[in-house]
């Protein structure tokens, strides 16, 4: 899903750069308020793990896919922390020639802003529903995996809509890019499940949805108070 330079019209890239800049600014402000320095090593390692996981493509004939990890990050750190890490990962990838520098805004919008916010919201809704029928840890695993699948497909659809601005990319191609990401989304969901399972077992304190979380303050979204902490206590 990393779009190189030379594909999109300049006006779209400028708009996306402005949106991305604003959202990065908001993310930094949100993180600044509640972020303790004891979490610093964890954030660095998590960013490196996501970057590493994105290096390996799994086959989805005739194409391939790789983990994005936006929903996973959003559930663990909240959408703001997730966006910042995706922003860093995309920046280093762009310097390495994976995804363009001019299209950084578009890529950040699709994989960072859209995927983190929608993934976080979807996972939270599913988590609240599942928590009524099973325990918290199973709920967070299932809700995050399902949300990551839906987000992968919907982010591909959004990318397809953006690509409609490119001459030669039509409705059938929009259908194709969405359909192929249904299968890539299954891979995303499985990898999300495995990585989250490690953290659920090894350090559940770093998953913002869980009761024992140490990062829920950082994951707070002002438009809706974070329910795990507000309701449970």
């Amino acid at each position, binding site marked *: *899903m*990393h779009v*190189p*330079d*030379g*594909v999109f019209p300049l006006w779209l890239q400028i708009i996306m750069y402005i949106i991305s800049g604003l959202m990065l600014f908001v993310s930094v402000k949100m*993180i*600044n308020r*509640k*972020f*303790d*320095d*004891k*979490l*610093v*090593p964890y*954030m*660095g*390692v*998590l*960013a*490196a*793990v996501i*970057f*590493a*996981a994105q*290096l*390996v*493509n*799994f*086959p*989805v004939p*005739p*194409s*391939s896919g*790789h983990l994005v990890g936006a929903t996973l990050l959003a559930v663990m750190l909240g959408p703001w922390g997730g966006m*910042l*890490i995706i922003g860093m990962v995309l920046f*280093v*990838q762009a310097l*390495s*020639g994976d995804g*363009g*520098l001019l299209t950084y805004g578009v890529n950040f919008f699709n994989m960072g802003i859209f995927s983190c916010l929608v993934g976080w919201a979807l996972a939270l809704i599913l988590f609240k529903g599942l928590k009524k029928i099973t325990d918290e840890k199973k709920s967070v695993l299932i809700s995050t995996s399902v949300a990551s699948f839906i987000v992968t497909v919907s982010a*591909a659809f959004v*990318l*397809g809509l953006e*690509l409609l601005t*490119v001459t*030669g*990319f*039509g409705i*059938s*191609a929009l259908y*194709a*890019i969405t359909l*192929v990401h249904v299968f*890539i989304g299954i891979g995303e969901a499985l990898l999300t499940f495995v990585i989250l399972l*490690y953290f659920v077992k*090894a350090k559940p304190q770093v998953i913002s949805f869980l009761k024992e979380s140490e990062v829920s303050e950082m994951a707070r979204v002002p438009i809706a108070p974070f329910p795990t902490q507000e309701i449970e206590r």
Partner: protein
Amino acid sequence: MNRKESLKYTIPLVLVIIIVTSLILLGMASQNPDGFEWALFDFAGLTEPEGGFAGIWAFLGEGVFVNAFVGIVGIIAVLIIGYGFFRLTSRKTE
């Protein structure tokens, strides 16, 4: 941070680096175009843009060893950037 806590952070990172490097070196990562490239260049038939920024490592050329090297450097770079950025923006605790 105590030794046990440090290991909890270090072990998964080292494991991930080993797994990713092995997958790249063994050629197990898929060489197919990703979903976006397939839809745009193969399915829709658009021409892949050329002459854009190929990355700071482009002078090294192509190959599995180059990919593995670039990957490891990238992992370390993200680790340092992430650590530095969050260090700067964090609230100091006792």
